[in-house]
């Protein structure tokens, strides 16, 4: 009996796959109430009330969808929650609004020009809602099998068995499909629809037949009937596609060449113009609806002067999304020039932006953030350990303190303790240097490092001689 119970517990654990925890995975929204007033601690957000309030106003502007091509700059010191606010905004907007997140340095590539990369990013941030008839597979999942080819790293193959009350079919899946199935955490007993053309998976709920099977399904599980009739149906569905996706569909070379062409590459401007006019036509006829989204450019100071002037122009277009940039620079050189400017962004673009500042966190707020991170990283921490950690965060940086959470919990685990104590934190504090202490150390022992013997000239000589 006991072994049976143990087996069941095992099964429950295997159902909920462990997700990886990212730096901002604790953020679930902006933490605003209905009147868009920021709550002190909510949805993973702490402090930064003014910036969050400003983000709330921007959120409202995006939701209304009327105003195109506005730019917002989040400016603040490192570790003051600029990216967190952008992530929170994305979460608050919901999955139907396109939100493209990129880093400023992503545009530099050998395969694509800078402006092409920016144009693609801009067009990825504009959605079109359109009704289209498409092939839908709708059924209850009987089995999902994912096999990895022997030898590791090779291609994966997947098989999916679906059924309705009248039939049952096996499907073969490609790698993309396997990934999205795993992402949606599809398991046996779920009733799902798959759009055959786009591969989009929609979970309708769990089958009634499985209602008694698991206690682990949770309260939010919705129970639905197993579908009837054929698995594959033609249905009119409302799609949300981005302008970029429409570009890609229309620019693919077909036939023999399709075998060799890669994913996208550069898209001709004629095709874009054609699509713009087509979309305008659809909108006039009421067939489609435009959903302007958000383009978020992190580390915006990494863009160069050409990109900035391109953005100046691009923002004036009717079909421009709201562009949010984040930077942690003060007055610095604009990349690609010798001029200095606030945030490393030229004044004419700055003039078109609204600037939202973020300020360093207070002692109490740091404690709250660390507490939230401890929960997110599944780590029990004693009160005095948290106090020490907060002090570390005030004296060094928040990021360094967050790094210490999991490391300290691993140290605690090694001595078989359930809770992280102050000693554990002290131990990892001595094991891992923060940036400041590392600098101190370097200054002290600089002479003993490579290429540092004697004056600066000598080191240069050595490099040249190599």
């Amino acid at each position: 009996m006991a072994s049976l119970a143990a087996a069941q517990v095992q099964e429950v654990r295997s159902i909920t796959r462990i997700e990886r925890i990212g730096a901002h995975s604790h953020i679930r929204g902006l933490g605003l109430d209905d009147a868009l007033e920021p709550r002190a601690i909510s949805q993973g957000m702490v402090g930064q009330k003014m910036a969050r309030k400003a983000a709330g106003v921007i959120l409202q502007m995006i939701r209304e969808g009327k105003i195109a091509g506005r730019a917002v700059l989040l400016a603040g010191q490192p570790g003051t929650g600029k990216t967190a606010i952008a992530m929170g905004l994305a979460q608050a907007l919901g999955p139907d609004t396109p939100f493209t997140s990129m880093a400023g340095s992503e545009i530099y590539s050998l395969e694509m020009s800078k402006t092409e990369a920016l144009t693609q990013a801009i067009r990825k941030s504009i959605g079109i809602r359109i009704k289209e008839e498409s092939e839908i597979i709708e059924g209850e999942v009987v089995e999902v099998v994912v096999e990895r080819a022997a030898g590791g790293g090779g291609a994966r193959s997947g098989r999916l068995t679906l059924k309705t009350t009248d039939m049952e079919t096996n499907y073969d899946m490609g790698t993309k499909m396997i990934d999205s199935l795993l992402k949606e955490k599809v398991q046996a007993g779920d009733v799902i629809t798959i759009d055959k053309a786009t591969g989009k998976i929609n979970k309708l709920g769990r089958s009634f037949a499985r209602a008694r099977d698991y206690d682990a399904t949770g309260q939010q599980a919705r129970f639905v009937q197993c579908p009837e009739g054929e698995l594959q149906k033609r249905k009119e569905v409302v799609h949300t596609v981005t302008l970029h996706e429409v570009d890609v569909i229309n620019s693919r070379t077909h036939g023999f060449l399709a075998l060799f062409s890669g994913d996208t590459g550069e898209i001709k401007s004629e095709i874009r113009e054609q699509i713009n006019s087509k979309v305008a036509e659809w909108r006039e006829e009421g067939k489609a609806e435009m959903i302007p989204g958000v383009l978020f450019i992190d580390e915006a100071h990494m863009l160069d002067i050409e990109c900035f002037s391109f953005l100046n122009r691009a923002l004036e277009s009717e079909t421009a999304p709201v562009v949010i940039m984040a930077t942690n620079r003060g007055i610095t050189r604009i990349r690609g020039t010798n001029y200095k400017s606030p945030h490393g962004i030229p004044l004419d673009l700055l003039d078109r932006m609204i600037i939202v500042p973020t300020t360093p966190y207070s002692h109490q707020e740091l404690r709250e953030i660390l507490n939230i991170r401890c929960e997110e990283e599944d780590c029990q921490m004693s009160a005095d350990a948290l106090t020490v950690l907060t002090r570390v965060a005030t004296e060094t940086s928040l990021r360094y303190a967050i790094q210490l959470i999991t490391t300290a919990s691993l140290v605690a685990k090694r001595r078989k303790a359930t809770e992280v104590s102050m000693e554990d934190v002290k131990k990892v504090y001595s094991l891992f240097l923060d940036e400041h202490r590392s600098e101190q150390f370097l200054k002290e022992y600089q002479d003993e490092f490579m290429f540092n013997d004697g004056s600066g000239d000598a080191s240069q000589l050595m490099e040249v001689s190599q």
Partner: protein
Amino acid sequence: MKRKFCVIDKIESREQNFDKLKDFLSKGDVEKMYRKTIWYNSLLNAEKTCLKDEKIKKIHYKFEDGREMVEEYNVDTKVLLRRAWKMKGKLGGEGKWSVEIGDPIPETTPNADAISIVESKDQPVVLKRNTRINIEWRIRNLPYPIETYSIKAQNDQKLIIISTSNKKYYKKLEVPELVRLGLSIDQMHIDATHKYNTLIITYKKPQQLLDMEREWYAELDKIKPIKDIPNECQTQ
């Protein structure tokens, strides 16, 4: 070929004496009913191009509403071998051919990344064939014995529905040929056999359809085939 037609005539007359009687009364009208259908007229009005390739005659139709269709006829037997429609996506892009009758067009092997989800190779596939007197569906990879299947004509939705007692297979078959002429599906004309893991369903073509097909083939003879066939595929 002539003999076959006579056979059908006999069966028809035995089964539908009443219809035969009506034919006698207003023979011209009823027999040529198909001429009034939207389908026949759209065929007449379509822009047609013809290609002749030894034993096969290919006709490309461009309809007034912008749709495209291709038919392939065997020149000797005058039987339609394949009919395919061009499916255009709403978002644009090059459309795919969807085959209504005949063997599917073999696709160039797509790379494994591109395919998202397809039926496994061992799953049932429906093939629709056109013969002189029958419309025929062949469903391969169906191992269950003949008693498993129930095949019913459903006239509300103009479908033939195949279901299985073991709940493994279910399929709605459309019969656009009959729908286009406004004819109903008759359970009497449906026949099924099961052999070599294949379920073969045949539907005897009604006289109206046979007449129309015969007349339409004669009509197609009026179209001049294009002389300059691209012969890059031929050897030498």
